[in-house]
């Protein structure tokens, strides 16, 4: 690659480049995406960063406060819990589980939801309205309540709670996909493509999907924050992650009995959950604003 650009070619930014340009103008959104990137790195490479085995118990070092406290030690940066386990390592593993499972289940919910939503949006008549109104009725129930009901039926456990939240999130994606598809199908460019002899899969890939991605990104971030809160809530209620699986909500529940002598055991996982949800929401909000502004130019 040459270092110099001899010919000044005009750049033709794609919609994504334009969105990114608009997104960068908001500093709060940039801070959010950096935090989100940090959580992604932790989710991918967490075990490599963690200094200790998160399950290693040490009776000599129970309830050591974080290192900035006068009685803290730098060997345990964020202190230890009631069983002498390093809180920093536990937090890293816990955010890996919470964030990773949330992203995974949102992806599954999105795939299934979009597939059903597109089918409902592109077809007419009884089949479409059954899919739509049946699933819209489900949206009345909060996802957490729905997830608790499903967990109560299939039993507790991290995987079961993941399935439960996935199932609870699917109606949201179906609803929004169907609305978007319905709106797009009325547009004249779809009719023009149909007149060219396009098949339904062709219309979906070239006409619907490129116009739907923005909605999917925005809905995806909303669903991600819901998923994180629900996973931790189920973990806190002892319905989600069990036993040796470390999860932020379960960590909170475990530390409840030492809350008065070792408040950092509650504060730090809580702060992590807050930052996670906050960064996801800020990024979602920034994206929505950027997409709006891009369309106005």
């Amino acid at each position, binding site marked *: 690659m040459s270092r110099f650009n001899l010919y000044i070619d*005009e750049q*033709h930014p794609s*919609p994504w480049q334009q969105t990114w340009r608009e997104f960068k103008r908001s500093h709060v959104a940039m801070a959010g995406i950096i935090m989100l990137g940090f959580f992604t790195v932790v989710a991918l490479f967490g075990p490599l960063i963690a200094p200790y085995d998160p399950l290693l118990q040490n009776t000599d070092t129970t309830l050591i406060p974080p290192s900035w406290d006068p009685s803290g030690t730098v060997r345990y940066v964020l202190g230890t819990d009631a069983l002498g386990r390093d809180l920093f390592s536990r937090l890293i593993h816990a955010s890996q589980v919470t964030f990773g499972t949330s992203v995974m289940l949102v992806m599954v919910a999105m795939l299934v939801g979009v597939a059903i939503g597109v089918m409902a949006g592109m077809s007419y008549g009884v089949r479409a309205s059954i899919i739509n109104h049946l699933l819209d009725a489900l949206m009345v129930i909060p996802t957490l309540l729905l997830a608790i009901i499903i967990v109560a039926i299939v039993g507790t456990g991290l995987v079961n709670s993941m399935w439960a939240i996935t199932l609870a999130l699917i109606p949201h994606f179906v609803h929004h996909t169907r609305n978007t598809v319905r709106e797009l199908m009325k*547009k*004249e*460019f779809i*009719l*023009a*493509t*149909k*007149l*060219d*002899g*396009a098949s339904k899969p*062709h219309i979906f890939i*070239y*006409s619907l999907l*490129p*116009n739907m*991605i923005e909605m999917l990104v925005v809905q995806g971030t909303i669903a991600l924050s819901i998923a994180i809160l629900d996973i931790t809530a189920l973990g806190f209620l002892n319905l989600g992650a069990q036993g040796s699986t470390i999860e932020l909500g379960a960590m909170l529940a475990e530390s409840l009995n030492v809350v008065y002598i070792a408040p950092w055991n509650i504060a730090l996982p809580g702060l992590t959950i807050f930052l996670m949800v906050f960064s996801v929401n800020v990024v979602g909000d920034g994206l929505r604003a950027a997409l709006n502004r891009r*369309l106005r*130019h």
Partner: protein
Amino acid sequence: MTTILSAKALTYVSEAPRRFGRRKHEAFKLGPFDLTIEKAETVAIIGGNRSGKSVLARLLCGAMQPTDGEIIFHQDAPHSSTAAKQQWQKQQVRMIFQRSSESLNPALTIGGILHEPLKLNTDLSYAQREEKIAAVLSQVGLLREHYFFYPHMLSDGQQQRVAMARALILNPSVIVADEPFAALDPSVRSQTVNLILQLQRDLGLSFVFISHNLGIVRHIADRMVVMNEGQIIEAGRTDTLFRWPKHEITQRLISAHQSLIPQASDGKRLK
């Protein structure tokens, strides 16, 4: 003159949506009527709102199916099967929509939009398609660079040209346009009109268009069709209709147009 497209006893009845067993509003009925379009002629369709102009345009290009009667395309199809024939007719009769901003896919570049009809209807390779697109872009007075543009980056007039390029790219013989000039300002409108006239001379296209602007109709149309409430009430050569309108509604339309023109230039001719 050879007839290229003709409609026989064309009828279209829209299904009125039923709500709680009662019809919300009356069903719209178009026709039955006959209509022929000659090769390389310009036909203007005028009429008030809800007179069935747009429905007629959509029926002609195959976007809607007639309830009764048929539309015959008088040119031998290179294929024999019915489905292939229908698709070939759709290639030969192309439509330009009213709002070009809505008829272009906002998520694709102009190049992507123009690739689509070629990909679906021809066996050209990617390089051949690129060549064809570059040719058609310059034909409608756009630059090669517009290949990389997204529709929202273009002005209304340029979008209209892209819509025209999309219609022209399959070498059609008839172009049906639904109010192609409605959204354009006067200077761009006259540019577009001239472009259409020039393309018609170069390619021998038949051009059917809907317009409320009788000035343009008088300027470019060979024949004129006046519609009202789903019926053709008058049809004939443009200058004849402008001078001796027979039907009351045509008289009203024409006199409304004439009253806008200074009497010194046009008043005498009216008499």
